[in-house]
């Protein structure tokens, strides 16, 4: 059931309205009863008035008879009838003073026995009468009630057969009745003839046709007036009481309750805005309400304190929520919020915006090698270094493990490059050796610049910066890359996302991957190896490793990728696409060595070891993490028949320490070192000497990137066991009956 909810003022108003209506109804009933009684009395008064009229008319008739008798017995009447010579004088002078004619009647005229007015009679009098009307009281419609006439026959003493003449009394009916009767019930002045007839009426008939008005009872009138006045006083008293009570309740209850309700409502409405909650400092007159007020006020104060504390906590939490705990920088959430706020602040116009993404190079190996604590210190150092050279007001965000970002509002390309170079420089200046990290630590910076409009999404700009980041991380890059639409490098970057897709599709469908093999030609006997180089077929073309390997590394997909390659190599072996006797060299990341399934898969290959010598090429950088564990697995694989080659030697760091600790059989000199051999400078000497040193240490040496005969001669002279490069062979796809391979091994 719905509960009616009204304010106390409305309830009070409603109460008084109901009370007023009740009293008004009672008054109405009282008045109705009074009027009903009055109506009954009126009815009674009508009957009484009828009787009164009848009585008055009877009195009039009797009075007329008396008048007739008096006139008949008056000697002077007979005198005038007998001697009418002075009738005019008599009627005018004598008759009014004689006291014979009743004051109820206004006029008396005498007529002779023929009905003619006595000579000298008034012109206003009827000139003649009808003797047959003798004894009748007549109403003439033409004369109205103001002139009723009664005709008396005047007889001589003892002679009733022949009248001496006639006397006619005329009178105003109302005047006569008023004179004869004291009316209590009807108003004689309002007597009127109902449906006035066209002919004369006798008194009896006239009475039946009289309309009368009943006099209002003075008692009833006074009673009604008294009751009405009483009701009026009552209504006034009610009104005054209601208003007084209303004001009283308003002051005592309604206002305090309303303020309390407002205060409580305010507490409920907006918990964060205490200024919306009215203060309840003034005391209330009602003790109970004042107690409630005090409670609410106390509660309000406590709530205010709690809110203040909560707000402070919220600020702290918000700060914490937006702050990276490790570096003290803003975190990814702050980055996204700031982006939204900035974009939201734009109104109908666009502003240039530069997004700089920072990524620590080789952070994973560092972290894995030196431990998380050192890794964290490296990140803190990088954060401090970069943050210290940011523009005033710009924020640096840590948006991933080793990824940082900043938004340069209003920055053009020049400004973005300036900031990026400053950051790069700042990191270079940091001494990471104090952290125990011997290898140089650097960062790569991807920059995306665009005109930002309201509502723009961060995703595409971030993707652009991400793509530029991959560009920056490419070998030989300046560590800073700007995403430019239409430029070749940017085109590469642009397709980075496509390469990612191609990579994921290839991992999902290994048939998209192709293994191209490149010969490692032996120079001093021994087995010849085919290095398995992966290509990804995508959109009708081939993606080279330089394009998708950064994706593999950044997505930490090394193990999955290596597994796929191993399976493909196994397929090549199973299909006998690789000529018998030819060795197979497989590139393997250090991450794959942690995966038992990869190790198991590699061991599976050893069933072809008799016909195909097997070699694993571990890239120099991939050896960094978990050296002991890798050493253990490499030992297992070595004992299973694999030769272990250290790939790209000369391009990473601390190769000597690795060589000392790892079970390496072959060292593949990176093409950057091999190319140095062409120069007759100190570097060439160092490389040559280092090659001899490695050879003397028992390692088999492989020269990569040999592209011409000069370089061929040099490596031969330096005692390299194998040579690899375009001068020898280009990577190519093997078929099961590949003639070229067959020829080579024959």
């Amino acid at each position, binding site marked *: 059931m719905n509960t009616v909810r009204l304010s106390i003022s409305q309830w009070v108003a409603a109460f008084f309205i109901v009370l007023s209506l009740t009293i008004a109804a009672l008054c109405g009933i009282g008045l109705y009863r009074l009027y009903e009684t009055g109506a009954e009395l009126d009815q009674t008064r009508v009957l009484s008035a009828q009787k009164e009229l009848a009585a008055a008319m009877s009195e009039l008739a009797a009075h007329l008879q008396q008048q007739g008798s008096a006139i008949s017995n008056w*000697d*002077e009447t*007979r*005198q005038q009838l007998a001697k009418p*010579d002075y009738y*005019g*004088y008599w009627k005018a002078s004598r008759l009014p003073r004689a006291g014979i004619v009743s004051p109820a009647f206004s006029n008396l005229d005498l007529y002779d026995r023929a009905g003619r007015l006595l000579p000298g009679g008034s012109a206003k009098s009827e000139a003649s009468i009808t003797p047959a009307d003798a004894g009748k009281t007549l109403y003439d419609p033409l004369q109205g009630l103001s002139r009723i006439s009664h005709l008396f026959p005047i007889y*001589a*003493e*003892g002679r009733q057969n022949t009248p001496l003449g006639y006397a006619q009394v005329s009178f105003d009916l109302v005047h006569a009745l008023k004179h004869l009767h004291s009316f209590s019930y009807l108003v004689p002045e309002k007597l009127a003839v109902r449906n006035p007839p066209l002919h004369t009426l006798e008194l009896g008939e006239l009475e039946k046709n009289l309309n009368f008005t009943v006099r209002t009872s003075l008692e009833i009138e006074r009673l009604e007036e008294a009751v009405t006045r009483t009701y009026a006083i009552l209504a006034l008293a009610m009104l005054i009481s209601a208003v007084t009570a209303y004001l009283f309740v308003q002051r005592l209850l309604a206002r305090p309750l309303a303020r309390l309700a407002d205060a409580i409502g305010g507490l409920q409405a907006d918990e964060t805005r205490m200024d919306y909650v009215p203060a309840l400092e003034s005391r209330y007159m009602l003790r109970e309400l004042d107690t409630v007020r005090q409670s609410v006020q106390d509660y309000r104060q406590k709530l205010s304190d709690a809110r203040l504390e909560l707000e402070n906590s919220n600020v702290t939490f918000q700060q914490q929520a937006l702050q990276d705990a490790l570096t003290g920088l803003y975190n990814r959430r702050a980055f996204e919020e700031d982006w939204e706020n900035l974009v939201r602040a734009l109104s109908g116009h666009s502003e240039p915006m530069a997004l700089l993404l920072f990524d620590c190079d080789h952070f994973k190996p560092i972290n894995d090698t030196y431990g998380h604590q050192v890794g964290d210190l490296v990140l803190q150092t990088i954060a401090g270094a970069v943050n210290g050279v940011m523009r005033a007001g710009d924020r640096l965000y840590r948006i991933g493990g080793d990824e940082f970002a900043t938004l340069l509002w209003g920055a053009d390309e020049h400004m973005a490059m300036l900031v990026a170079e400053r950051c790069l420089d700042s990191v270079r200046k940091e001494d990471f050796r104090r952290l125990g990290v011997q290898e140089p630590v650097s960062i790569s910076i991807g920059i995306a610049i665009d005109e930002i409009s309201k509502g723009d999404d961060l995703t595409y700009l971030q993707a652009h910066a991400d793509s530029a980041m991959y560009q920056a991380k490419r070998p030989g890059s300046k560590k800073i890359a700007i995403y430019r639409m239409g430029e070749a490098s940017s085109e590469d970057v642009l397709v980075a996302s496509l390469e990612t897709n191609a990579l994921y599709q290839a991992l999902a469908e290994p048939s998209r991957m192709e293994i191209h093999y490149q010969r490692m030609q032996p120079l001093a006997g021994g087995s010849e190896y085919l290095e398995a180089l992966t290509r990804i077929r995508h959109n009708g073309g081939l993606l080279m490793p330089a394009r998708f390997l950064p994706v593999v590394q950044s997505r930490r997909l090394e193990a999955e990728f290596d597994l796929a390659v191993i399976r493909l190599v196994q397929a090549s072996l199973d299909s006998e696409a690789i000529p018998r006797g030819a060795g197979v060299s497989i590139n393997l990341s250090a991450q794959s060595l942690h995966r038992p399934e990869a190790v198991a898969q590699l061991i599976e290959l050893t069933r072809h070891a008799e016909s195909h010598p097997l070699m694993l090429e571990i890239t120099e950088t991939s050896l960094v993490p978990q050296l002991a564990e890798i050493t253990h697995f490499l030992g297992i694989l070595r004992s299973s028949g694999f030769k272990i080659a250290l790939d790209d030697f000369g391009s990473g760091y601390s190769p000597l320490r690795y060589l000392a600790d790892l079970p390496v059989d072959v060292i593949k000199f990176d093409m950057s070192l091999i190319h140095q051999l062409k120069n007759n400078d100190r570097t060439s000497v160092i490389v040559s000497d280092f090659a001899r040193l490695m050879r003397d240490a028992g390692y088999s040496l492989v020269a990569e990137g040999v592209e011409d005969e000069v370089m061929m001669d040099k490596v031969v002279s330096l005692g390299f066991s194998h040579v690899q490069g375009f001068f020898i062979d280009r990577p190519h796809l093997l078929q099961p009956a590949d003639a070229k391979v067959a020829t080579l091994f024959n």
Partner: protein
Amino acid sequence: MAEKILSKSGEAVTRCAQSPYKNRMLPQPILRMRRCLLKTLLVMCWLLAPAAAGAAVVEIRTAEKTVASAEFHQGDAAKPVILILHGFLQTREFGIVKAIADALIDNGYSVLSPTLSLGISNRKRSLDCEALHLHDMNGDLQEIQQWVQWLRSRGVERIVGVGHSFGATQLLAWRERYQERNVDLIGISLMGVSPLGREAAAPPAGKHAARNRPDASLVRAPLSFCETYTAPASMYASYKQWSADRILTALKRTGPRTDLIQGTADTFAPPNWEERLAGTPARVHRIAGANHFMEGTHEFDMLDTLLGILKR
């Protein structure tokens, strides 16, 4: 002369036979007590006694076609018939007149008590002073003559006229007019019609005398005891001429058979009236202390005097 005798009903025409006025030897207080008792008995007799035989109302038609009436009571035939005439504008029912008639009837006299018509048929009440008076002295005298003739037509030989106030004057005038020298007259409180106390004043001229209308000849002026008396001038004059002097003249002419009973306290009487009457042949009987109407115990004195005169 037309006449008619009607039986009278409801009229007190019979009195107790014994007159209280005959015993004059009793002491005065006892006498007055007896009179009161007798008056009470008289009233009771009047209320209880049936209509007496012999009482009748007689009507005559006057020369002016009006009907005049008189009450006639037949008494002792051996005694003279008394014709009692009322005063000015009065009727036979007037108190003193009625008392005289009753007393005479009680004493065995035949009494004829007419009411002068004054121009009104069957006049029953005194005519107001303020009424229009369409009668004159001549008509009154003719009516008296008619009543005398009516008596004589019934074989009455001896008639005594008794008149009160102006009735006595009218009887005196009648006797003078009709030369009835053998008729004895007894006048009680005889007076004329001059305004009281203004015997010598001339009658005022008629207000409407110059107007050529029926009422133009009317005169409104004092007459006798009437402050305002309205009548045609000639009729007014017919009464007006009967001043004190005119009465004295009439008395002197017919005085020997006239007795006058005058109250000594009659304020209506002209000045020195007794002395002036004494100068006439009429015999004047004084009632000490009596007023014009012989009221109170003077009525009995007057009646005793009257009866004494009749017995003489």
